[in-house]
């Protein structure tokens, strides 16, 4: 009967507005400014 079990379709947000506190990236490397070069607002 296992194969007739109805599957659930998952759709889960894995990103957060909050950077830090365990989020992965952007870098916390002290040599890179802000959120990383591509995301830095210095232009």
């Amino acid at each position, binding site marked *: 009967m296992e194969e007739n079990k109805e599957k659930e379709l998952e759709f889960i947000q894995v990103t957060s507005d909050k950077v830090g506190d365990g989020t992965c990236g952007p870098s916390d490397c002290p040599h890179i400014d802000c959120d*990383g070069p591509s995301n830095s607002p210095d232009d």
Partner: protein
Amino acid sequence: MGGREYFTLSSDCFLIKGALRGALYDLKSGNVFSVDETSAQILERLNFGENLSLILGDVDGINKEKAIDYVNALENQGLGSWSAVSTKKEIPSPPDLNKILKYVLHLELTTGCNLRCLHCYNESEISKLHNNNEVSLDDWRRVITEAYQIGCRRVQFIGGEPFLKWKLMRELIPFAYDIGYISIEVSTNGTLITKKDLNFLKEYNVKLAFSFYSYKPQIHDLITTKKGSWKKTLQVIRLVLKMRIPLRISVVEMRQNKKEIGETINFLKFLGVEKVRSGLVEPAGRGCNIDLVDCDIFAKQLLNKPYFAKINKNIFWRNKAGHNCFLEQISIGAKGDVYPCLEERKISCGNIKFTSFVDIFFSENAKKFQVLNKDKIEICKDCEYRYCCFDCRVRAKDFLENDYYPKPWWCHYDPYTGKWIDTYRFI
């Protein structure tokens, strides 16, 4: 299912498949969504222009109404749209990387430093100040010129302590400014800077980057190993703020200051420093000393649940094209060696005293780092999060095995089972 036969993801939404599950990258909102194996298969076929009814006929165990509700939810999120006719999603061409990358040139003017911080990645100290093999003024000028010619617009002077080479920096800063660099930054401990120096820096729109370790003088001085350094650095920070010179401060966390990281950040913000970040000590140079870290610090690095920072178009395309750091930055050591990043001191791509910077930048040696994205890392290459997950090879590499390409040890996701391992139970 009238009008609900075909569904394609929007032009800003990409399905990235892993070994088992998939992830939807919405470059418009910056969000990434995890989807299960079956959903990933359905979405992939929908993207090819297949009919939903036919797809569902091939998939066991799916309630059709639920499937439609599911796709409706994607549409409500703006990730795609229904269509009455078959539409195959066109994969857009990657943008011109030269237009989206922000190349940063790190120039290490000296390995000498008046402090001797416990964690220094460069193992800097005052005895390293006088070195006959250091890059000459003419060679630095040539590098700055060559880098500008290939699109670099940001330069950072660093050390050691670059203010020990103030005479050299007084030549190079106006030189870079006149060429047209839009961002000139000096990374410094701040202890040697005078008001006269700051007037000079302000004239050339120079930004400053400081390290600061604790609001407690004794802890800061313990880490810099120089009594009185806290007082001097703080005096300069106050002066920099008063003169409205752009400033960012990193609070590097290690066992010695871990208890007061929050208070130190608040202290700096209270002074008026807007850009303050904390970061964990990096395993390079003296930072490899195991006494600097403990279980709490290791635990902070662990990624044991799906929890990523938002991305944008530039980050997505950059991470597909190459490494998140090596593709945008390059470092030149005091002796002229070109490194993929400041903290990666063991691998030189060439030396600017013997080869032009441009030739090194475009060499196979440099390119192998520039293109080193997660598609080239074992296990990561099968992970659906590979274009939103930040990579640091300095942290990830296995020193014992001398392996430069391992999956980061702090990531506890298994893309082959789609499961996260709760590593805290082992700590």
